[in-house]
């Protein structure tokens, strides 16, 4: 999983362009322009991510047409008035691309925030508790992973109907068990250390124990996992939209655009390729950043 496996520490340091302090000392995550963003991979990932997020956030403000206005012939290719041509109903593809990023971002970032909030809380409580709370919590977590995530999302949509709210709740349910398990493992590990035992002996409360002793020491595994999990959220959110079970039609969404313009892929391929490309750039850049971070941790923490 990381290319540095098998290399000597000295080689690793040289390849990364580091000669001084190798990496990461337990608790101190340095936030001043982190090292992983100084590698080529980190910079490339960040630049692409900023570009895609920029398109998604600023796009709706500069879109030349309304996203539902029919301004040309269905499936017509690019022309002077429409650089990306027209979609299957004759709407401006450029405007819809500029409008379609925001829902993708919202539908993935909001669930990710809740995923980590719930996952970290559940994981830490389970990891620290010495009672029945731990097994009970973990069995509840296990319930949500008895089958493929997309299947759980579809089930929920059948039961509760389509809509952004249902999709977001579904994404949290699908994503949080992994975080909870990961945090629980990290917490168990951290709770055997001297400083946690000292804090327990001092009689600190559960909350302050979690916030001041455990949380700062488990940020590395949590951050290492953020990249893949965020891209999973993007993939599921866009995928459900692609299946036509997310935002309802006039709204633009990169996932939905790919499926609705498939029939005109020959006359105006841009209507499909551009949203696909933007989604690809988003997921790849996020994974690149995550991978760069994992590599910056070095081998020991990376496999956690």
């Amino acid at each position: 999983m990381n290319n540095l496996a098998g290399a000597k520490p000295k080689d690793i340091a040289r390849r990364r362009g580091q000669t001084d302090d190798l990496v990461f000392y337990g608790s101190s995550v340095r936030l001043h322009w982190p090292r992983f963003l100084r590698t080529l991979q980190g910079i490339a990932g960040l630049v692409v991510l900023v570009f895609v997020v920029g398109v998604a956030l600023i796009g709706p403000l500069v879109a030349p047409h309304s996203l539902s206005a029919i301004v040309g012939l269905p499936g017509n290719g690019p022309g002077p008035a429409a650089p990306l041509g027209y979609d299957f109903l004759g709407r401006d593809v450029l405007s819809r691309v500029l409008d379609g990023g925001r829902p993708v971002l919202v539908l993935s970032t909001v669930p990710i925030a809740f995923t980590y909030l719930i996952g970290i809380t559940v994981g830490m409580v389970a990891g620290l508790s010495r009672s029945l709370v731990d097994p009970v919590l973990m069995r509840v977590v296990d319930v949500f992973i008895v089958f493929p995530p997309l299947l759980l999302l579809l089930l929920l949509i059948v039961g509760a109907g389509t809509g952004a709210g249902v999709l977001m709740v579904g994404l949290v349910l699908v994503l949080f068990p992994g975080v909870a398990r990961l945090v629980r493992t990290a917490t168990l590990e951290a709770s055997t250390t001297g400083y946690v035992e000292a804090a327990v002996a001092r009689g600190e409360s559960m909350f302050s124990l979690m916030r001041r002793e455990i949380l700062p020491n488990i940020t590395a595994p949590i951050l290492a996992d953020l990249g893949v999990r965020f891209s999973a959220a993007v993939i599921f959110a866009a995928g459900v939209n692609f299946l036509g079970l997310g935002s309802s039609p006039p709204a633009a969404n990169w996932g939905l655009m790919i499926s609705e313009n498939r029939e005109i892929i020959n006359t105006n391929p841009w209507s499909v390729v551009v949203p696909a490309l933007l989604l690809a750039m988003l997921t790849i850049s996020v994974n690149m950043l995550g991978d760069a971070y994992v590599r910056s941790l070095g081998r020991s923490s990376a496999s956690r």
Partner: protein
Amino acid sequence: MSSPDRPDGVHSEPAVPSALPFQIQSVASVGALPSVGSARLTRATGMRGRHPLVWYIARRVAAGVVTLLVASALIFVATNALPGNVAEAVLGKQATPQRVALLERELHLNDSFVSRYGSWLVGTLHGDLGQSATELAEGASSTSVTGLIGRPLFNSGVLAMLTVILLIPLSLLVGTLAAVRSGRCSDYAISYASLALGSLPEFVLGTFLIVIFFSALHVLPPVALVPLGSSPFAHPNALVLPVLTLLGISLAFCSRQVRAGVIESLRQDYVTAARLGGIRERRVLWRYALRNALAPSVQTFAQATQYLLGGIIIVESLFAYPGIGQLLVQEVLLRDVTLVQGITLVLAAIYIAINIAADILVVWLVPKLRTGFQ
């Protein structure tokens, strides 16, 4: 990587490796032996002592059945999350009250929640997954869910099997190659290519493939239409792009895991010993390193197969391939609750079965796990 604190039972560790598309797993433990928490084979007397493997299999299957029960309950609760009337949703707003009442009676919608779940469960044990709501509403002659999902299930099986058959040798090859060249240019090329490929949503990769092979090169059809009643094998052209899409993403994941496993075993003492003993490097690699990296790879391939269960849903919709995934999405749109319940239960059963099979295979492959001392 084992989880010693996990009690045995329903969810003893690898009951379900991950809820996420397996990309997530690449951050989790890599190359290590699959969790052996559940493989604790005690040296007790009697049945357990004499046939530890049989005892282990029995326990895993029993745990799988319980997991499936949990899954069935979850399916039932999720599909009934909102009290919205299924009969009305299926028939549409114009339906007369009489028709709604009739359909409700046919689907037993007026019974209590628990009794509906109970009769569904009992029916399932008899191989009867109930009646499809939409088919009943249309007055179709055959309305049994079991009958409706047979053919699509076969078609999807063909798709998944072809992918797995190509996936295993290819990822072993690519992964081993990257491991041998570890740290060099070709390894970086493979690693970054697989990182990018594995990040893509299935429908994005599939769309790119359609644009390349259909729009630009005109060599392959953009949809995988298989006429009703004919075998997918009769239309090999149609299968190429769906299989390629699934293969691309799962190959990216598997080759990374294989690479990590091979690197791990190349570092072991027995490899050094073999090299010092003058055994040729090629033989050391394929017979010593790769063979020992196979056990963890079994778990990887199991995860990839489980991923395919979700992946086919998207890929079949993209290519209009008449499989179980496309049927599922159609019926979700139509809110055919009974059919969706049936399909998800079948898929969940396959998901759990793959898990158990992989666990048993690993215990069988790694003698260490069978002795009771670990």
